[in-house]
């Protein structure tokens, strides 16, 4: 019989062993009687001689080599039995651990993706990007002529490719639809080591102007527009009214660049573009040569750049080159900081969870002393006892891990599907999966904390004086454990307060950004984008005519209070930085010129936006094309250029490289408005009349008298009436726009809020556990007090004082620590100050409320105890 079948037929074997031992016992009794003892005496003798039958049985099991399996199974069974015997404890412990493991695994998986492999490209470490640092803009681009020169001269790069966004439109079933593509240089696919799933990449001659009517489809467009047609090669894609032959389809895994690209087309620079050095339009990606480091490439590029600066001083003067890894280019410092912040926050929750589990174990150990004492009295060895308790803790940890894994899977899928646009642009979130390493690590932490916290009580219990344990029969814990528990609870409170302060600041900041906008009213506004890129709008006059007609049409719609257009409305990621010279500094030969954002607007813009005009006048019919050039400046610009004094009538001109521009007269000053969510200061804005500074792409804003969303359809058809083929994009309410732009902040705030709630929930459990335990321990004392006539209220107060004391101590330290950390991380706070009083007052108040609740329950239970019962308890 092998050990497995012995194990299998355990019951049968036990029965046999039982029969065998009983046979022996009975014969012993019989012989004892024969030797003249009374039956009673005979039995007593036999029993004495026999000793513990259970010990014999266990030793027999050991002899047959199955004991370790059996006893482990038995321990497991005891561990599981705990789940129905002490369901409350087990459920809380498992949930606590699951929360810590699940949240951490999900966040860790996300962080690892973002920090490590934001795009799934082979050898991401070898990819880098070169760009010119543009003042005040996040965009990292290079002018074509500079790109071409660097491409030819570099020796440390294997290749460097350029690409630019191409937003265009296809004819869909319901009129023209937006489609986003990328124009790429000939090195693009080779640099990224990407192969098409079907067809081919572009030929060199297709990068010549006039031969570029070919496209490579993304897997997504191949599926959605062509139904995954296997004969798609050779078919045509009609973009902006022109036919492009499909020559290839990329695999679903290829996602680069990340801004929602749907197809790739050849970049075919005309000779005029090839010599363009001043306007940065191309993004770049390069692959380092084998053996070359990023530092070497950076040094080389800087040398080359100095050469180019010397060669073309007018264009490249005072511009800096930046060479960064592709990873760093995708995920900037702020995003990284946010993710690391989330990691820390999740780590805090895990820490709180572990402390909580340890705490629960300690509490339970106290109340199990009697059980342990009985076991020891019945002959359990110390090792056996420790093993049983450890098995229990491990069972608990593994259950927690299993539920945690479920939570992690769920959390990751929630993260994946709710990833805000802002994050999707820097990281290929579709490939977000539960990171197995992360999970194993978290599981390890949980098991370790389970085992360690299980170990302390196990050692303590087995050391416990037997008689003491049996006699008092109570749940008393030795002094060291109690002190440890108090420390645990206080540190839990500290961690929670720190976490809640962080969460409070984030949430408050986000809601301030989303809901309060100084300077103008975002409510009831609809915004949409129109790009007049087709050939019929080549002349500025044609574009102006379109805008006028469109504004007239929309104005005549019911429920429309006003309509205006601007080259960039707030929250549309608009950047049009220009350098300006004011009349005040024209004489000063400064090398550093102030910058401003130029925004071309129609005359009603301020009225529709409700931006107050502080000085001067609005634009009107006087300011047409050919009339004297005029501008309205923002308050901040007026202050920066002219110290805010006598601004109307002052003059300013744009700094252009090779031309002498005309002076522009300031006719008004408009109030400052916040343009983008992440702006920390008000921008200098130079508003120009559209007629004098025509722009081919404009944002329209429509103020509605009712629910703005109801205008979407009618506004859309109004534009169609003006031009049936003109696509309208980004139709949104202004509030939606703000929310979308703040979406990353929203995500961080939401996650932190959730973690904060988890923390406070866990702390409440911690406090509750400790108070409950101390009430059990003081049952006798409470009984005596009440028997001697203490008032219930007084006893409740006495019990609660302990809990409130913990909260107060932890709270005070937590506030200090939280304030310190918030100041340290103030660069991540938007819309709120690091010392926001409401948060610092609200968090302790909330915590006090929760801890009062958590202590009140056991306190109330304590006074309901019948004093007689409590006294008789021992």
């Amino acid at each position, binding site marked *: 019989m092998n050990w497995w079948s012995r194990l299998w037929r355990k019951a049968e074997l036990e029965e046999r062993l039982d029969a065998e031992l009983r*046979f022996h016992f009975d014969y012993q009794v019989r*012989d004892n009687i024969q030797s003249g003892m009374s039956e009673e005496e005979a039995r007593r003798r036999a029993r004495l001689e026999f*000793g513990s039958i259970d010990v*014999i049985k266990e030793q027999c099991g050991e*002899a*047959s080599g199955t004991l370790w399996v059996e006893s482990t199974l038995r321990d497991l069974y005891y561990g599981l039995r705990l789940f129905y015997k002490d369901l409350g404890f087990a459920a809380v412990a498992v949930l606590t651990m699951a929360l810590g493991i699940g949240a951490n695994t999900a966040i860790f998986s996300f962080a690892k993706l973002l920090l490590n492999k934001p795009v799934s490209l082979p050898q991401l470490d070898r990819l880098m990007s070169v760009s010119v640092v543009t003042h005040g803009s996040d965009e990292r681009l290079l002018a074509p002529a500079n790109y071409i020169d660097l491409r030819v001269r570099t020796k440390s790069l294997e290749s460097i490719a350029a690409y630019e966004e191409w937003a265009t439109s296809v004819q869909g079933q319901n009129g023209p639809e937006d489609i986003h593509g990328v124009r790429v240089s000939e090195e693009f696919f080779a640099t990224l080591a990407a192969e098409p799933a079907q067809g081919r990449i572009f030929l060199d001659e297709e990068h010549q102007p006039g031969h570029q009517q070919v496209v490579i489809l993304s897997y997504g467009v191949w599926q959605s527009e062509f139904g995954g047609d296997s004969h798609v090669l050779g078919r045509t894609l009609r973009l902006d009214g022109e036919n492009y032959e499909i020559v290839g389809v990329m695999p679903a895994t290829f996602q680069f660049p990340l801004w929602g690209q749907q197809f790739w087309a050849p970049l075919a620079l005309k000779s005029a573009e090839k010599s363009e050095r001043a306007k940065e339009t191309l993004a770049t990606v390069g692959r380092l040569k084998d053996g070359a480091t990023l530092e070497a490439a950076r040094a080389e590029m800087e040398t080359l750049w100095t050469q180019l600066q010397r060669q073309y001083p007018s264009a490249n003067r005072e511009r800096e080159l930046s060479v960064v890894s592709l990873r760093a280019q995708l995920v900037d410092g702020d995003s990284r900081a946010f993710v690391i912040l989330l990691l820390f926050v999740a780590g805090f929750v895990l820490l709180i969870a572990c402390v909580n589990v340890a705490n629960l174990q300690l509490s339970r150990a106290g109340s199990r002393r009697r059980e342990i004492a009985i076991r020891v009295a019945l002959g359990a060895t110390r090792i056996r006892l420790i093993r049983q308790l450890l098995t229990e803790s491990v069972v608990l940890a593994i259950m927690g891990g299993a539920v945690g894994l479920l939570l992690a899977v769920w959390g990751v899928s929630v993260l994946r599907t709710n990833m805000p646009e802002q994050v999707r642009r820097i990281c290929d979130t579709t490939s977000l999966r539960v990171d197995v390493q992360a999970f194993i690590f978290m599981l390890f932490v949980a098991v370790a904390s389970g085992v360690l916290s299980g170990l302390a009580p196990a050692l303590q219990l087995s050391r416990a004086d037997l008689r003491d344990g049996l006699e008092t029969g109570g749940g008393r814990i030795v002094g060291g454990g109690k002190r440890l528990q108090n420390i645990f609870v206080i540190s839990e409170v500290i961690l929670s307060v720190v976490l809640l302060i962080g969460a409070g600041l984030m949430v408050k900041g986000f809601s301030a950004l989303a809901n309060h906008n100084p300077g103008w009213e975002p409510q009831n506004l609809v915004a949409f984008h129109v790009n007049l890129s087709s050939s019929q709008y080549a002349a500025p006059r044609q574009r102006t005519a379109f805008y006028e007609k469109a504004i007239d049409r929309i104005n005549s719609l019911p429920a429309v209070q006003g309509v205006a257009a601007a080259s960039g409305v707030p929250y549309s990621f608009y950047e049009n930085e220009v350098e300006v010279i004011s009349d005040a500094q024209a004489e000063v030969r400064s090398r550093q010129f102030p910058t401003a954002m130029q925004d071309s607007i129609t005359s009603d813009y301020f009225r529709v936006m409700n931006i107050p005009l502080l000085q001067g006048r609005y634009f009107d019919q006087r300011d047409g094309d050919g009339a004297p050039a005029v501008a309205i400046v923002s308050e901040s610009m007026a202050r920066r250029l002219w110290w805010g004094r006598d601004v109307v009538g002052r003059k300013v001109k744009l700094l252009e490289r090779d031309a002498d521009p005309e002076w522009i007269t300031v006719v008004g000053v408009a109030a400052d408005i916040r343009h983008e969510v992440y702006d920390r200061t008000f921008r200098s804005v130079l508003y120009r009349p559209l007629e004098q500074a025509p722009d081919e792409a404009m944002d329209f804003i429509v103020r509605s008298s009712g629910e703005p969303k109801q205008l979407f359809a009618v506004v859309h058809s109004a534009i169609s009436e003006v031009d049936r083929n003109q696509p309208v994009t980004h139709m949104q309410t202004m509030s939606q726009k703000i929310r979308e732009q703040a979406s990353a902040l929203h995500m961080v705030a939401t996650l932190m809020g959730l973690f904060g709630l988890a923390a406070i929930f866990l702390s409440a459990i911690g406090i509750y556990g400790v108070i409950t335990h101390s009430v059990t321990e003081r049952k006798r004392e409470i009984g005596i007090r009440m028997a001697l006539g203490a008032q219930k209220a007084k006893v409740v107060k006495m019990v609660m004082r302990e809990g409130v004391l913990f909260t107060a101590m932890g709270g005070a330290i937590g506030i200090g620590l939280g304030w310190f950390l918030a100041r340290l991380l103030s660069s991540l706070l938007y819309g709120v100050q690091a010392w926001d009083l409401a948060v610092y007052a609200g968090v302790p108040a909330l915590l006090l409320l929760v801890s009062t609740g958590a202590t009140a329950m056991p306190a109330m239970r304590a006074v309901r105890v019948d004093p007689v019962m409590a006294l008789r308890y021992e």
Partner: protein
Amino acid sequence: MANTKTDLLQGTLDLLILKVTALEPIHGYAIAQRIQQISRNALQVQQGSLYPALHRLENRGFVAAEWHESETGRDAKFYRLTAKGRRQLKSECDNWARLSEAIGLILQVADGEAL
């Protein structure tokens, strides 16, 4: 009672059991009785040692067990020596003989003689 019994040397219980079971199939209680009788009450086998030893020997294949009726008509577990057990018994007996001879030689030496 406890002070009159001689402690068994580690491992010798196995030898005794093998020897007793070599005569005829026998149940646990009878094994204990037989050892006690033959040793004229000098050796008393505790149940706590006997049964684990029996199970250990069974597990290693030196003895085989069968349930059948005992002399009183009640079912008992009878142990008998297997061929493997017989070989084991022989080698242990030889071992024991060598060991006791060696120990006897040492003990026979008179006190002064050793120096």
